[in-house]
């Protein structure tokens, strides 16, 4: 057992480090190199230049507020939704499935722009509406502010938190809660004293993953932060890069290093707090299906709240997109705008060969990439959870390496690396780059699901004469299905709209959707951008629905309850 584990651990360390360490090594070298490329004379000047900038202090403060705020907002909202969905008798549960993934599928730039359109202080649609309704002299909301940024970024990261917390919530051992109720713990007390602490690994995982993601996020800080003159690290890096015509990515990498250190510290903190994860094992043979809490009086208000959240998260941005895709330029909705509506943007996009080509490429990367990525993630998550050695800790840290760099920077790292391989300028550069960078999207939901599978379920399979591969295939993976579906969805939707790496590595023939969308946005062609964005959402939805259907077929419990033939 242990031998097999250590063999597996070292094989995975080799694979994962090839994927993630190589570009980071390039960036480290680049940050110490005098020249503009990866290799050159040694210098510390780049570090000195970026870390002595007085602006860095203010930026760091902003970043802290932004990152913690958004991650906390996303995690709390995700907890709330996951609890309602998995543990209560709230109606229309399918809404949650949709809710949880829609923000994954909307290009982030577009999401941020539609919020600017709704809540900008000059003529934001919602603002103007509220002003008229209440006779206010000034716009009540300003989206170009820290709270605005936190809200929009939090909504965008909600799916990450939800997809990690929800599977854990779904396989929660009810008897733990029941015993609390028996010992006179009220529902609230039970929630705070029992449910949340037991779910700690999943909650922490979600929170930390959100933090790391927000640290690297660029769309919201650039679209909403820059107009509000609020700089965070990612926009600060962008500024460093664009301040000169000869962009110095070494400097960007030098700033990136501190984000990297921060991220790795967070991973270790996470590991420290979940080191007794055996305590949290909850799936065993008994009590597999969580009981449902009757909401009674709370049902209607909670349901209304859910409807409002769905409206904000799904209907509003999609409506804005739909609207924008029909109008020739950005206009406030009025008679004139409706008169000007046409299908022109849709026609242009559908007849554009590069858009079609990029759709094909992105579908390939999304579906095949996420499948290969999920497979690798299952193995890595297995080692992280079941093999608690120093080496498995090391594996966990390196799996986060590329992920924790801001997108602008890691893309260059991959370019410096891939240009030395035959993969450069092929679709495989994107393929491996995506998997390497977004590996945690697969690993995180799967580890929190793994933590809950009792070791004996797997051991008994070995005793029954099943090989490791058979055990994985017939016992571990079927039990992991909720986690695997989450991981796959996170990866596939991410790959489908990936921008940071693509913009650096995509070449003629390997165009992908996000790069095409960026091109439209750089030309200010929001209509075409929205049309393509909607096409993207449509195909993302197909992928998500498809994998959920497949996942349901393997679902434990009910689905297997077939009558004898």
């Amino acid at each position, binding site marked *: *057992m*242990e*031998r*097999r584990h250590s063999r597996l651990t070292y094989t995975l360390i080799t694979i994962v480090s090839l994927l993630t360490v190589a570009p980071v090594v390039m960036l480290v070298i680049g940050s110490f190199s005098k020249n503009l490329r990866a290799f050159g004379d040694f210098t510390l000047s780049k570090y000195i230049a970026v870390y002595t900038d007085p602006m860095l202090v203010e930026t760091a403060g902003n970043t802290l507020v932004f990152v913690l705020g958004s991650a906390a907002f996303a995690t709390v909202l995700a907890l709330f939704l996951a609890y309602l969905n998995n543990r209560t008798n709230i109606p229309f549960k399918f809404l949650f499935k949709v809710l949880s993934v829609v923000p994954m599928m909307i290009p982030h730039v577009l999401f941020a722009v539609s919020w600017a359109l709704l809540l900008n202080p000059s003529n934001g649609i919602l603002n103007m509406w509220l002003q008229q309704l209440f006779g206010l002299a000034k716009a009540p909301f300003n989206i170009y502010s820290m709270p605005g940024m936190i809200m929009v970024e939090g909504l965008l990261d909600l799916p990450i938190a939800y997809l990690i917390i929800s599977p854990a919530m779904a396989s929660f051992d009810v008897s733990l809660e029941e015993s609390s109720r028996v010992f006179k713990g009220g529902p609230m007390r039970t929630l705070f004293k029992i449910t949340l602490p037991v779910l700690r690994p999943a909650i922490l995982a979600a929170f930390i993953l959100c933090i790391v993601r927000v640290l690297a996020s660029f769309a919201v800080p650039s679209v909403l932060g820059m107009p509000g003159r609020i700089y965070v690290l990612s926009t600060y890096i962008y500024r460093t890069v664009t301040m000169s015509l000869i962009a110095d990515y070494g400097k960007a990498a030098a700033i990136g290093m501190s984000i990297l250190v921060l991220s790795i510290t967070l991973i270790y903190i996470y590991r420290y707090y979940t080191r007794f994860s055996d305590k949290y094992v909850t*799936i*065993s*043979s*008994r009590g*597999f*299906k969580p009981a449902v809490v009757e909401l009674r009086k709370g049902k209607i208000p909670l349901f209304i709240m859910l409807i409002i959240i769905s409206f904000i998260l799904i209907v509003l941005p999609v409506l804005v997109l739909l609207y924008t895709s029909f109008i020739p330029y950005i206009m406030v909705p009025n008679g004139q705008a409706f008169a000007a509506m046409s299908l022109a943007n849709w026609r242009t996009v559908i007849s554009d060969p590069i858009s079609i080509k990029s759709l094909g490429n992105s579908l390939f990367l999304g579906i095949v990439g996420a499948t290969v990525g999920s497979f690798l993630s299952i193995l890595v998550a297995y080692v992280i959870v079941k093999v608690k050695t120093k080496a498995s800790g090391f594996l966990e840290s390196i799996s986060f390496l590329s992920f924790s760099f801001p997108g602008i920077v890691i893309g260059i790292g991959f370019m410096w690396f891939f240009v030395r391989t035959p993969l450069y300028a092929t679709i495989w550069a994107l393929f491996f780059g995506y998997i390497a960078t977004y590996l945690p999207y697969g690993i995180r939901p799967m580890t929190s699901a793994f933590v809950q599978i*009792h070791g*004996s*379920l797997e*051991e*008994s*399979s*070995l*005793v*029954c*004469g*099943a*090989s*490791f591969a*058979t*055990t994985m295939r*017939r*016992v571990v993976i*079927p*039990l992991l299905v909720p986690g695997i579906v989450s991981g796959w969805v996170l990866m596939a939707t991410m790959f489908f709209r990936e921008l940071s790496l693509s913009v650096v590595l995509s070449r003629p023939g390997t165009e992908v959707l996000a790069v095409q969308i960026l091109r439209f946005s750089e030309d200010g062609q929001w209509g075409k951008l929205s049309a393509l964005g909607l096409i993207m959402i449509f195909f993302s939805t197909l992928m998500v629905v498809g994998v959920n259907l497949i996942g349901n077929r*393997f*679902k*434990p*419990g*009910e689905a*297997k*309850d*077939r*009558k*004898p033939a």
Partner: protein
Amino acid sequence: MQITITGLKKHYHSEGKTIRALDGVNLTIEANKIFTLLGPSGCGKTTLLRCIVGLETPDEGEIKIGDTIVWSNEKNIYVPTEKRELGMVFQTYAIWPHMNVFNNVAYPLQNMKMPKDEIAKRVAKTLKFVQLEGFENRPATRLSGGQQQRVALARALVAEPKVILFDEPLSNLDAKLREETRKELRMFLGELGITAVYVTHDRVEALALSDMIGVMRAGNIVELGTPKKIYFDADHQFVADFIGRANLIPAKVTEETSEHSLVTTAIGSVVCQKRSFDPSDELTLCIRPEFLDFKPASDAINRITGVVEQMVFVGEVYESEIRVGTELIFAKLDPQTTLKEGDHVTFSMKPEHCLLVSR
């Protein structure tokens, strides 16, 4: 199949401390017998079982199942769990919640690549054996504890392994069900006549089920023997104490004859059955409560008088404590007795029931 364990060591390191889970265990488990590893929690019994199955890797030593070495540090042999052809029932049963009963039980056969109709036949036969006929399509999550336990047993038996291992399989059942299942298990294993290794901390289970018992403490086998030998004739105070309620009184040998030893204790001089000990051993007199005779003949050996201090009625007996000098003697009094607390009472002990054990 016989299991031979030689010099098995397994140490854990945690927070700077070394825990010797197995401290050089030597053990031969005879073929086709039910062997029980008994001991308090943390004594290493589960670790030993898991080493036999291959779920854990020892640090040193050798494990032989039949004629096959499945683990040897020296010879660098490691046969992985799935190649050891064993059956095992886990404490949690480890019934796979995503499969129905049939698939759970058929699993080992499917791994052997047996033809489908043969699998169906064997599963049906095994389910019948464990009295779960007609449960094939029941999802595993819709079984009671006792049913899950039987599914686990069926799964362990279905491939007809030469050795079957049990890791505290009854500890999750309620008392009544535990008793029934224990009887059933005894019956099943008796019918099959295969080698069974059973781990438990429950002495009644151990006594009721086993052909042989190995009592473990701190990574070592302290004593090995049949249930009767362990119960009546233990060599060690720890074993005597662990296997059943006993009065343990420090003793010193003062005189020896060819058959008996005379010892002095806090309750006076007692004639015991003679046993040979290492002269440096400190000794304890061990008397089980059921051997105290409260209607002693006037000429009985080992007549002792004390005061009843406490009497608790538990149905079949009065559990009572009798003060003799500084010692409190635990005794079981006839439920119909007229004795009451504070009464003087005289009892006797036959020398063959007065057991000298090493401390």
